[in-house]
Each structure stands twice: as structure tokens, then as C-alpha cells.
């Protein structure tokens, strides 16, 4: 993965770009994962296509990683939304790295569906973002006009009908409590768990497990490595873990023919690399 974090994405900053002294990467606050994704895609002057998504995945991951390293205080629930997108991007990328047909048809379909849904959501967001910009311009323009809003002349004011008043002291106090309550912005951020339908699987843990097994056996088939996986998520996690280990150059793959048996060989020396996964360290943030 490229380590270059994106700088200065071409999207207006919200409450100013966050800059921490001593850190070279300048980050812009985005209003959400789609905002970031669109910005990355437009920076590369590409259409919203599969190619674009696969290419920007690394930058997307790098961006959220850089945010973390910078100690950026972002709302945890927003972080988890970023992670959902990141996970989808990674799945799409992973699918592209495989020779056609490697995934079983069901999983393949799932990746395709995820990709299409991501495209659709991204397009939807893009449309709203564009129309929001127009609304913003119109609101700004409209703010140049001031309505006539003057107090009634006393002789007219005297004609106002008697006020209908239905609040007792307690109701009024409740109203005051509400009006004086700290506003939304002061409420501590809470983590949304709506999208978490099942326990997350740690890619890092799976990588460590695989590394131990591979170190012990020197080489194993992928089939053997996932034989004890209880569900599809663990299989996916192990697959992603292998990609990470491959990146770290501690394993090599051998596959004599398409769709044939995939053999994984341990090529690393010394202790297991602790730097297992970008993605996983983020996941730890979300579920920890």
C-alpha cells in the first residue's frame, strides 16, 4: 500500500483544516466517508468506476490512518462509518487481486453487490452534495435581503387580541429546562453500533495465528489454513491477513493453475512482524 497520505483534498474544510504542529501531513476535515471518497476520486480525475475505487482504496486507508496517527479527535461513530466504507473498498480490492473465479460464487456475488451498492450510495451522496452547494449559495445570496420586521406602532399594538396562555408554572419550568439545556454539540460523542450485526473478526489476530501455523509447518494450503474457520467472516479475515503478510514479504503464494490449490509458504525470518495490518488497527479502534 502506498504510504503517502493525501494532502489538501479539494473540498472546503469544515471548521478549518486540522493541523498538528510537527506533523507534515495536512489533513482536511471531510463531512463523511463519501465526501473523502469523492474527493479522492476527483483528485485523480476519474469517474466513479471500479478502477477508481480500487486505486483510491489505499489513499482512503492512508487518510484515516494518518488521522489516527495525528491524534485527530474525530467522533467514534463517524470513524466507524469510515471503517464500513474502508472494509467495502478492501473487499473490492481483494476481489480484484484474485484470479477470476477464485471466490466461491456466493462470495463473489456478495462482493459485486457490495460494490454496486457502494457506487449507488456514492452517486446519491454526490447528488446531494452538489445540491447542498447550490442551496448554500442561494442561502448566502438570500441573506443579503432583510425583511421588514418592525414593532407595531403603539396604537395598533394595543389592539392585539388577549394572549392565550395555557402554561402552568411546572410546564413553564420544563420548557425552561429544555431551552437552557446544553446543546447537541456539548453532548459527548457516542458510538453507533447499528451496522455491527455480528462480532467483528480481527485481521491482526488471524494474521498472527496464520503466521504461527506457517512458521511451524513451513507451508500449508489455503484450504488447510481456513479448514477450522467457523464462518465466512473468519475466512475473509484470514484471506485479508494473507494479503497483508504477503505485503510484508513474509509469505509467498504458489498456484500452478487457475482455480487450483493455493499454497502458502512462510518466507519470513525471525519473529512475526507486529505490523500486520493497516485495516486491522483501525478495526481495533472501532470495536475497542
Amino acid at each position: 500500500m502506498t504510504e503517502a497520505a493525501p494532502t489538501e483534498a479539494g473540498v472546503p474544510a469544515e471548521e478549518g483544516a486540522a493541523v498538528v504542529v510537527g506533523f507534515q501531513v495536512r489533513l482536511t476535515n471531510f463531512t463523511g466517508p463519501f465526501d473523502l471518497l469523492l474527493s479522492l476520486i476527483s483528485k485523480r480525475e476519474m469517474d466513479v468506476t471500479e478502477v477508481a475505487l480500487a486505486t483510491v482504496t489505499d489513499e482512503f486507508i492512508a487518510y484515516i490512518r494518518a488521522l489516527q496517527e495525528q491524534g485527530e479527535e474525530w467522533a467514534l461513530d463517524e470513524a466507524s462509518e469510515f471503517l464500513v466504507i474502508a472494509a467495502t473498498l478492501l473487499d473490492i480490492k481483494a476481489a480484484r487481486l484474485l484470479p477470476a473465479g477464485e471466490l466461491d460464487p456466493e462470495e463473489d456475488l456478495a462482493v459485486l453487490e457490495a460494490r454496486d451498492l457502494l457506487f449507488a450510495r456514492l452517486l446519491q451522496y454526490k447528488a446531494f452534495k452538489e445540491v447542498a452547494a447550490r442551496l448554500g449559495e442561494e442561502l448566502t445570496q438570500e441573506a443579503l435581503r432583510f425583511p421588514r420586521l418592525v414593532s407595531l406602532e403603539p396604537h395598533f399594538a394595543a389592539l392585539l387580541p388577549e394572549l392565550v396562555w395555557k402554561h402552568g408554572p411546572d410546564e413553564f419550568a420544563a420548557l425552561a429546562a429544555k431551552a437552557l439545556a446544553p446543546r447537541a454539540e456539548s453532548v459527548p460523542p457516542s458510538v453507533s453500533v447499528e451496522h455491527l450485526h455480528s462480532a467483528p473478526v480481527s485481521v491482526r489476530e488471524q494474521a498472527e495465528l496464520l503466521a504461527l501455523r506457517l512458521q511451524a509447518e513451513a507451508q500449508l494450503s489455503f484450504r488447510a489454513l481456513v479448514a477450522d474457520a467457523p464462518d465466512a467472516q473468519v475466512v475473509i479475515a484470514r484471506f485479508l491477513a494473507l494479503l497483508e503478510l504477503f505485503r510484508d514479504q513474509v509469505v509467498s503464494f504458489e498456484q500452478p493453475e487457475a482455480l487450483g490449490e493455493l499454497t502458502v509458504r512462510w518466507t519470513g525470518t525471525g519473529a512475526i512482524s507486529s505490523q500486520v495490518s493497516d485495516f486491522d488497527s483501525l478495526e481495533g479502534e472501532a470495536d475497542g
Partner: protein
Amino acid sequence: MADDGLLSALEAVLMVVDEPVTAAQLAAALEVPEPEVEEALLALRAEYDGGAPGGRVSGGRVRGFELRNLAGGWRIYSRPLHAEAVQRFVMDGQTARLTQAALETLAVVAYRQPVSRARVSAIRGVNVDSVMKTLVQRGLVEEAGTDPESGSMQYRTTAYFLERLGVKDLAELPAISPFLPDLEESTAIYPGR
């Protein structure tokens, strides 16, 4: 064609309104049929804009104020050309600009209303609870009852939003991409879940 007496009486009432007022309300106060009031309002608007009202020979000058039909009612505004001068006298927080997050949330509510927070969150990809609260507090968005199916609170834009935007009703909002997919709330973009 509206007579001078009606134009003048309308102007007198418009001087004391503090929110957009409908032709029907004006008709009731003036005891004149509503269509006549509507015609007179259009004549006044044209006149303030420098046109020649109802059959007059020559137009007048462009006035420093304008009559506009917004958010379902008529109201007098200062002309944008003079905003700088007016601002020195009217201390008003109205010019505060909304952040991008607030604008996007407002846009989704405007085009998808009535809509739940969860649905807006799904479209924007982020939690919108606090932004929505602030929009409600600013009077741009209001609660619109609970959805009978899901039981979740629905939100819609207010008349004040229309007024701030300078439009008469929701149909006047700029068109949004016609190819916009109308995705349901699902956030299940993650495969295998």
C-alpha cells in the same frame, strides 16, 4: 387594473406584517375579493422593481425595497444591492453561513422529507444527530411526527427555511440529479452480513 386606493391600503398593511402574509389574509383585512388583491400585489411588485404598473404610461425608479412572495406569503424586503448599508443598522445573525455538514443534512431533509435521522445518516454516511438538532434549533427543520411503521421521528423543512432560501414552496427547489438512486435505509454495504 388595481386602483390607487387598493395599492395604497395594501402598502399600509404590508408595513406592519412581521411574517409572510397571504393574499387571503390581506383580502380579509381590506374587505376586497382575493383575486383583486392578488392582482394588486403583482402590480406593486412590478412597480417596486421599476416597471410601469397596471396601464400607467411610464415606470418609476427601482425602489430600495422589493415585495416578494415567499413561503406562501407576501412580505417587503430590502434589495440585495443595499445589503452593506442595511447591515450597519440591522444587527442580525441571519447571515451566518451554514457548514457543509449542515447544508448537506438540510439538503437531504429538503428532498427526502419527511425523513428519519437514520435515513439521512445512511445517505450522508455519518451520524447526523447533532447537526439535525442544531437545524431544528435554528428553525430550518422541524419534527414531523413518528413514522407509523418504524416508530422513528421524521423531519421536514419549515416555512422559515423556504423564506430563507427565497422560494415560494418546495416545488421551487433546484432540481436534483434525475438519475438519483433512491436507496432505502440499509447500511448493509458490507458483504456477507
